[in-house]
């Protein structure tokens, strides 16, 4: 029968991640819970929504080993509000509950059915090892382009490709496409390619940031991918179902040549875009009008108002105007990690490219919006 004591802060940090992963809408009640198990000198939390799963270990003083399933949201709310620095969890099997005690506060929370909680994948043995920071930086560059539309499952993932000394991630929602290629300090032992749900990778990013891990190990099961993070707090494993289906052939979408290539200060263009986008409401486009030596960014929302701002850019040639979804255009600019961006454009109905100007391997392709007169 489980009896364990640990610091409330460390439990809270990992419970926040576990509660995000625990299912909020499953018919199986145990899936809304977190499996708390204690053994040796650690406590392990497990949570899953049957798509993404988490196992995370944290140091604890274990008086008696055991495992129980507790409602994740409630447990999180309790731990967040505890008055003391440490917390003790003690199972009371005759009451079918767990007593949570901290300071003078005592809670008794009913357990959920252990048998209904699935067995989650173990941390990978072997697998591909990658520098954690490079991995999460690459996720951050492309994640915004992944679709949130569940009717197109294949586009809700990030295509991860690691081979030799190169890591590449690609995401697209059919309106924009992000590709980030990162050079690795150490070549990977085996190549790896899989379409991983963006949500799983974003959770992995949070865990890496929280644990300050050096490396991420990637293992692949039949239709699952398992990431192991060895951080300061304790090992964590996040596993995810892989997405079936043919990922779009993105290479052929990237234009080989363009009509106009402009080097622009990223921060300035981001600021202008943010300001002017305030008047691009109700699906109104952000308009970019290029003329000799200048770019006018403007937006107009009927019955609301309009805005425009001009900035100098090294544009030469025949003037033209192109429209973009303001959010998509801003996402592209914000995903660039260099002081300058390269805007590569051809015509008002051809996709525009936003690239990092420092050859750091980031490309963002965004489809324009047709502009009325």
């Amino acid at each position, binding site marked *: 029968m489980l009896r364990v004591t640990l610091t409330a802060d460390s439990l809270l940090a990992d419970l926040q991640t576990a509660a995000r992963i625990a299912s909020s809408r499953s018919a199986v009640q145990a899936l809304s819970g977190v499996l708390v198990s204690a053994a040796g000198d650690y406590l392990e939390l497990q949570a899953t929504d049957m798509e993404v799963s988490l196992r995370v270990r944290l140091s604890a003083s274990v008086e008696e080993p055991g495992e129980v399933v507790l409602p994740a949201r409630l447990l999180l709310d309790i731990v967040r509000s505890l008055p003391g620095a440490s917390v003790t969890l003690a199972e009371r099997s005759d009451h079918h509950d767990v007593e949570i005690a901290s300071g003078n506060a005592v809670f008794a929370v009913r357990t959920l059915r252990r048998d209904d909680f699935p067995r989650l994948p173990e941390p990978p043995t072997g697998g591909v090892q990658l520098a954690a920071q490079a991995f999460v930086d690459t996720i951050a560059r492309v994640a915004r382009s992944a679709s949130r539309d569940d*009717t197109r499952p294949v586009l809700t993932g990030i295509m991860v490709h690691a081979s030799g000394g190169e890591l590449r991630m690609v995401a697209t929602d059919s309106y924009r496409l992000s590709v980030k290629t990162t050079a690795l300090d150490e070549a990977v032992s085996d190549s790896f390619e899989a379409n991983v749900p963006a949500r799983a990778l974003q959770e992995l990013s949070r865990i890496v940031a929280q644990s300050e891990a050096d490396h991420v190990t990637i293992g692949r099961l039949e239709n699952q991918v398992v990431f192991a993070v060895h951080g300061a707090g304790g090992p964590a494993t996040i596993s995810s179902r892989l997405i079936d289906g043919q990922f779009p052939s993105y290479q052929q979408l990237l234009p080989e040549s363009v009509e106009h290539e402009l080097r622009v200060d990223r921060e300035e263009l981001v600021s202008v875009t943010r300001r002017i986008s305030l008047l691009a409401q109700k699906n109104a486009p952000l308009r970019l009008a290029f003329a000799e030596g200048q770019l006018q960014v403007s937006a107009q929302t009927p019955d609301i108002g309009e805005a425009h701002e001009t900035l100098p850019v090294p544009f030469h040639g025949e003037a033209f105007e192109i429209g973009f979804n303001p959010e998509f255009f801003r996402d592209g600019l914000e995903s660039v990690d260099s002081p300058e961006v390269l805007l590569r454009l051809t015509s008002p109905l051809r996709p525009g490219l936003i690239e990092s100007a420092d050859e750091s391997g980031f490309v963002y*392709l965004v489809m324009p919006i047709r502009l009325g007169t």
Partner: protein
Amino acid sequence: MRLIVARCEITYSGRLSTFLPMGVRLVMIKADGSVQVHSDGGGSKAKPQNWMTPPTAIEIEGDPPERIEVRKLNGSELLEVAIEEVLADISHEADLAIPLEKDGVERDLQELLAERPVHCGEGFRLVRREWPTDIGPVDLMCRDDADGWIAVEIKRIGTIEAVEQLARYLERIRIDPAMADCRGVLVAQTIKPQARTLAGARGIACVEVSLEELRGTREPELKLFAA
């Protein structure tokens, strides 16, 4: 139709018991004997808080009304409205129900897609609308550039049931050796993720279409690739 806006409390007994404490509400008494109680909320459901369908017996006490009792004639349901203050009380003779003229129903989609079958798939040309099978007609029968047969089922919302329906049609159509390779395409304004998954497993293609784009009232959105 009588519309009474009143500060009232409402008690219902019958299939269950409910109580609405004192508050301002609209009590709608229609000529067909139905009674509805509306609050100023309800959001997307747009449903009355209390209601009684006809046939009913309605007793209104007082002028201005102080109490309304609505009793179901063929049951034991009772709706009682105790009125503290009447804020408005108007009666009008309203027209009887005329069927709604619906736009954007399956029929409209089918007509538009029959005129422009390429929206169902590249190179599609129409062979016939309402292609008969022995278990019912499939919406469109088309052929593609390679003269292959394609059965197209059209729905406003593509569900698992629509996939199953098309799979049944295909089973019957393919009995004819000349159409043994007939493919299936489910076309809808929205296709549910479960339907898409099942369609994939059944080898049926899914295509989402926009009524506005089919009618030419909206330009199609520019995409990097057909998704």
